[in-house]
């Protein structure tokens, strides 16, 4: 007797149900109404595919075994049968491992039922049609093939007779998948070895010496499954029996591996890994800052199709001294981190929204810049981990052969964060400082979740390359701080772990553990430098903010990295003098900060520049006022109404004000003068470029790690969901139990008008029930004319309405009395 999954689920204790929901969280979105709905959803193709996606290679193999060992009639299998099949190969896995895998599958309810009669959820067959890469049984395909398969000796003989080219095809199909497409006409070509093979027409797709596929089909080892016309490309399938025979050496399931493939590479020195990674983090932060400064100086226009143009990217790459892929990566990361954003271009010609936009640093960039190096890096790395962008696509071409540009919608991939987490997860699960090759990482991913990793090899490689580029890994191994960052992100994804938000870190401004770990690896800021006779100033480490400001004011940067080299030039000294330093200040500055004696050349340079400094005087004024009439100017200067303009007399015929022309003009006119604005040529109008920033954007980091992943629910909530489902289930069951008179309602009486006596009877019952506070089944016609029934406890009757309480929902319902068709006391 087969029991349905729903019945099975219903019979489970609450904890088991909750465990299922925990393992397959997609089942509770939205919360199913009752157990039947839950069962249906658990067997749906989508949900099953999702569950299968998360399984490792071995467990999938065991599931395949379960499918292959199903009894042809009853469709059930037993753990022992599965075990027997899984251990037939030359390297049988340990029975405990097989049992554990079966238990995993049962916990997921991909298998259900007692051990001796396990059911496989039918959707599994839909999701992956060929268990263990084996075809359908011959009986399902072709009776003649079935006849051949029924005779093992003959089958074997036929196999041995296969020509080498045909055998190669068989072996390929036996390794799975068991179907292959053949070129059009191949099946019409004469079989290999046939008399007329040599004369075959080479244009028909078959080789002139005959088609091995045709041979195989003719000899019933392959079955042509395409029903199309003879010219269409066909499909052939390898029957299960033949496939099993071909797999004699490796076991019916193919090679099974209970544990992930080992990593052969020797682990590196953890310190070297961290050091290389930390070095890279400094680079990343510095380059990102350089890029954003570059964007601030010359914003990149947004293309009409979105993203920024190839030429702009190239320009940015060149000025930042990076290659284009790296530039694209850093730009995308900075954008995802909320450090860059779009702004309407000034003087935009069209009014259309988003027509003329450019990419600029945002206000958030200023905040970011003020943070410590480690925090800045963490912000970037966090954004990288969570951003739904596949940067590797930038620079390639899309389906329509158009280039994919940076920041464009074409590079958007919702699965990117999950891919990153999967790849880094593989690294994190290895011993610290293990640096597997890209192939080994791929092999590990293939084992862990073959259904998910298939076809994503390129994306995985990209993740590894990007992780190295961003300093998340060093020398190919996950760094200690990278591990912490990954751990923080993963734990942040589990609200159950921290329901009250006790461990808020990023928002409160305290550095996270990852940032702290990185901070310890980065060089400590220094407060001194070394001055040399060639007028270079070497800061042997990252400068303190105060020192950095002093250097920015007095020197030109020359080389950056762990340390920085600056050069004192005539221009830089002049700039410092302009900025308010005096010669003595500069001498004092170099003397105070330098660990080495200040070279005579430098002192001489400072004095020499200072001597000439100020020989010419330049001032800035917002506007000037000029008149040949000195008396008039004197009058204006003395006018008290114009005091606010703070006019200053530069020469007998010139006044100046710090305010802009418009204000000067307005004030003069208000005061009754008749000024005329002068053309700007020859004027001393100075303007300072305004720093423009795009409006602040919310960083992507505030999102959860993977928008696609279903939310993880804590146990109490899960139990709540279970209770809800249970109650729905009880109600549904109760609804089925309602008395016929109520259930049928008017329908039971042939659809005619409700007889008066029935109605009055019902009223009597209800009145009695109000008095007794008894439960009553009420049949009624709802607003849409449908009949319905409800188990309620009447509270009162009056004004043509019955007010009653529904026990299930604990809600008070109001029924119009004339709509009630029947009422029966519940027993």
């Amino acid at each position, binding site marked *: 007797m087969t029991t349905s999954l729903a019945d099975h689920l219903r019979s489970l204790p609450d904890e088991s149900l909750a465990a299922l929901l925990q393992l397959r969280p997609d089942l509770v979105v939205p919360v199913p109404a009752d157990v039947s709905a839950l069962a249906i959803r658990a067997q749906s193709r989508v949900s099953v595919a999702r569950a299968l996606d998360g399984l490792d290679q071995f467990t999938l193999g065991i599931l395949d075994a379960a499918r292959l060992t199903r009894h042809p009639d009853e469709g059930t299998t037993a753990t022992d049968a599965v075990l027997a099949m899984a251990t037939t190969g030359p390297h049988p896995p340990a029975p405990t491992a097989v049992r554990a895998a079966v238990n995993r599958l049962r916990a997921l309810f991909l298998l259900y039922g007692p051990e001796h009669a396990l059911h496989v959820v039918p959707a599994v067959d839909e999701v992956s049609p060929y268990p263990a890469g084996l075809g359908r049984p011959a009986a399902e395909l072709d009776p003649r093939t079935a006849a051949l398969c029924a005779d093992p000796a003959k089958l074997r003989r036929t196999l041995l007779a296969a020509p080498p080219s045909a055998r190669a095809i068989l072996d390929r199909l036996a390794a799975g998948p068991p179907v292959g497409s053949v070129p059009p006409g191949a099946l019409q070509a004469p079989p290999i070895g046939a008399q007329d093979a040599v004369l075959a027409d080479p244009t028909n797709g078959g080789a002139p010496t005959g088609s091995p596929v045709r041979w195989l089909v003719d000899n019933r080892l392959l079955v042509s499954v395409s029903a199309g016309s003879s010219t269409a490309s066909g499909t052939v399938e390898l029957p299960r029996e033949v496939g099993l025979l071909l797999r004699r050496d490796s076991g019916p399931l193919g090679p099974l591996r209970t544990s992930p493939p080992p990593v052969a590479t020797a682990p590196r020195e953890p310190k070297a890994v961290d050091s290389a*990674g930390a070095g890279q983090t400094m680079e990343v932060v510095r380059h990102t800052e350089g890029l954003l400064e570059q964007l601030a100086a010359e914003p990149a226009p947004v293309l009409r199709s979105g993203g920024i143009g190839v030429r702009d990217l190239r320009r940015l790459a060149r000025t930042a001294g990076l290659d284009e892929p790296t530039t694209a990566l850093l730009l995308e990361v900075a954008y995802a981190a909320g450090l860059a954003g779009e702004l309407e271009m000034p003087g935009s010609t069209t009014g259309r929204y988003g027509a003329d936009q450019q990419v600029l640093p945002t206000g958030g960039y200023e905040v970011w810049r003020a943070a410590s190096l480690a925090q800045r890096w963490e912000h970037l790395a966090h954004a990288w981990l969570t951003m739904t962008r596949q940067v590797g696509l930038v620079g390639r071409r899309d389906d329509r052969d158009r280039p994919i540009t940076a920041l464009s919608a074409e590079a958007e991939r919702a699965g990117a964060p999950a891919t990153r987490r999967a790849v880094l997860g593989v690294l994190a699960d290895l011993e610290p400082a293990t640096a597997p090759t890209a192939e080994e990482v791929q092999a590990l991913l293939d084992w862990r979740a073959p259904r998910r990793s298939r076809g994503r090899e390129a994306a995985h490689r990209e993740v590894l390359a990007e992780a190295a580029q961003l300093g998340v890994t060093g020398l190919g191994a996950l760094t200690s701080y990278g591990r912490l960052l990954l751990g923080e992100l993963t734990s942040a994804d589990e609200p159950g772990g921290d329901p009250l938000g006790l461990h808020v870190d990023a928002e409160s401004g305290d550095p996270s553990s990852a940032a702290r770990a990185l901070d310890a690896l980065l060089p400590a800021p220094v407060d001194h430098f070394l001055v040399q006779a060639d007028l270079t100033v070497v800061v042997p480490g990252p400068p303190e903010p105060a020192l950095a400001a002093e250097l920015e004011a007095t020197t030109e940067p020359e080389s950056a*990295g762990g340390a920085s080299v600056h050069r004192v030039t005539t221009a830089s000294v002049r700039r410092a003098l302009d900025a308010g330093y005096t010669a003595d200040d500069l001498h004092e500055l170099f003397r105070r900060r330098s660990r080495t004696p200040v070279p005579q050349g430098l002192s001489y340079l400072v004095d020499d520049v200072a001597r000439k400094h100020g020989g010419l005087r330049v001032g800035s004024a917002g506007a000037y006022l000029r008149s040949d009439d000195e008396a008039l100017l004197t009058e204006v200067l003395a006018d008290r109404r114009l005091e606010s303009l703070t006019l200053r007399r530069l020469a007998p015929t010139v006044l100046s004000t710090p305010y802009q022309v418009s204000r000067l003009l307005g004030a003069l006119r208000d005061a009754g003068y008749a000024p005329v604005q002068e053309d700007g040529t020859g004027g001393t109008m100075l303007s300072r470029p305004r720093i423009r920033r795009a409006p602040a954007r919310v960083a992507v980091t505030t999102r959860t790690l993977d928008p696609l992943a279903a939310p993880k629910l804590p146990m109490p909530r899960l139990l709540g969901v279970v209770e809800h489902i249970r109650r729905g289930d009880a109600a549904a069951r109760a609804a089925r139990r309602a008395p016929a008179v109520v259930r049928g309602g008017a329908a039971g009486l042939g659809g005619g008008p409700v007889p008066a006596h029935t109605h009055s009877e019902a009223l009597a019952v209800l009145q009695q029930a109000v008095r007794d506070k008894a439960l009553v089944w009420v049949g009624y016609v709802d607003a849409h004319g449908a009949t319905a029934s409800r188990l309620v406890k009447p509270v009162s009757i009056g004004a043509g309405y019955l007010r009653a309480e529904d026990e299930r929902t604990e809600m008070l319902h109001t029924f119009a009395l004339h709509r009630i068709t029947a009422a029966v006391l519940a027993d």
Partner: protein
Amino acid sequence: MSGGPLIVQSDKTLLLEIDHPDAQACRMAIAPFAELERSPEHVHTYRLTPLGLWNARAAGHDAEGVVDSLIKYSRYPVPHALLVDVAETMDRYGRLQLANDPAHGLVLRALDRLVLIEVAKSKKLAGMLGDKIDDDTIRVHPSERGRLKQALLKLGWPAEDLAGYVDGEAHPIELAEAGKDGRKPWTLRSYQREAVEAFWAGGSGVVVLPCGAGKTLVGAAAMAEAKATTLILVTNTVAGRQWKRELIARTSLTEEEIGEYSGERKEIRPVTIATYQVLTSRRGGAFTHLDLFGARDWGLVVYDEVHLLPAPIFRFTADLQARRRLGLTATLVREDGREGDVFSLIGPKRYDAPWKDIESQGWIAPAECVEVRVTLTDAERMSYATAEAEERYRMAATARTKLPVVKALVDRHPEDQVLVIGAYIDQLHQIGEYLDAPIVQGSTTNKERERLFDAFRTGEIRTLVISKVGNFSIDLPEAAVAIQVSGTFGSRQEEAQRLGRVLRPKADGRQAHFYTVVSRDTIDTEYAAHRQRFLAEQGYAYTIVDADDVLGPKLPTVD
């Protein structure tokens, strides 16, 4: 954090803190693969270049070792990308090999088939490669050997040349270490011996030795090793005669065996010394002296001052790939950036002087460099201010105000030999008259020149005024004081030559002085700033004084 002496910058410069206790060890470790760029007093700057890394690779260092020493001595974490880049760059050398196949002659052989496929498709190699012998081997015509190496280097896949050399016409040459013609016996210094051995083992290549370390002797020893006819290419005639003198004194060669091939004489003998100038002179657009390369079956070609090698010589050298080539230089840095051609055509660096020897050469301020700033008179200032842009430098440099300062400087060193160097003939004549000193200029005949130099050497003449002709390869060992009044600050390397000749360590350890007289607030000062930077980068002490301090009465000193 290791607290090492080295800071690795992301622009591939390495900063080495000299005062660090590990600085010496670190220098030894990085010298094979990093080029010293600047050596001021506290922090030396090295640069990682592909050529430097390939040189190291050719010398047998591997990427692992380079990365290790970077990490070992680095004070701060080294960026991962830089390490990857170093490893990848080094890995590119030697994937392709030029070899002699017994059956097919010269072939290009690949240790990495994909690289061969990649380069074979390149347009730059079109016509250089012959037919394919098998998947890993392509035939190469011997005449394309040099050009192919050049092109492969440009593609970033430098080939290792294992094709060997012809022996050339044998000629007995021995080092006369026992002393010759009554001279004292001598021996090759250990590093010279090592340099020759490294060169000989490598076949062809460049030996880098600082000025005065005896490069000529390395050349002589290499000739003694080759025992074959030798072509020596030098910068000019004076240098050529010096080679000749040295060879006669230090080897078994006699005057008759050594020929001079210059503007004056065209002798071709078993050992022939030719100047770059004569080889690159053209008549009617054609090089007229190319026959020299084929005049004999040379067994060895020596290039003196490789960093000055003119571009046409490279073209000739491309055809000389089957002959052993020895390059001698003090620096691999070339102004024209053709270090790559030196690498591919003459060969990788085979020997670099150990640090200790450079140190004994006195990288720490062997001379005192003083810049004297002269304030122009108001009249001079005014004419300078109104001068045409192209006349300005001349106006500033030849200001008459400089004359008394020069005289005062000469008088400061009554005991020393003084050279006054200038670029403008008129000015030099003025100075000559003012100081009553002879002048050596372009129009001075070689004979007169040598007479004056000899007189200067013996001390007959105390002060000599020379023009730009003195820039290259003149040997004035006892000039302890040089005064530069004008110059064309063209290339760093010209400056290096000019100063290097004068600033050699003196036999008695006297302090050498180098004065530059500069007009204040003019373009002259700007050139002087370049000079200051260059000298300071070389580690020379550099001070700037005002002319009044020189002219005025000496201030009483405290000590």
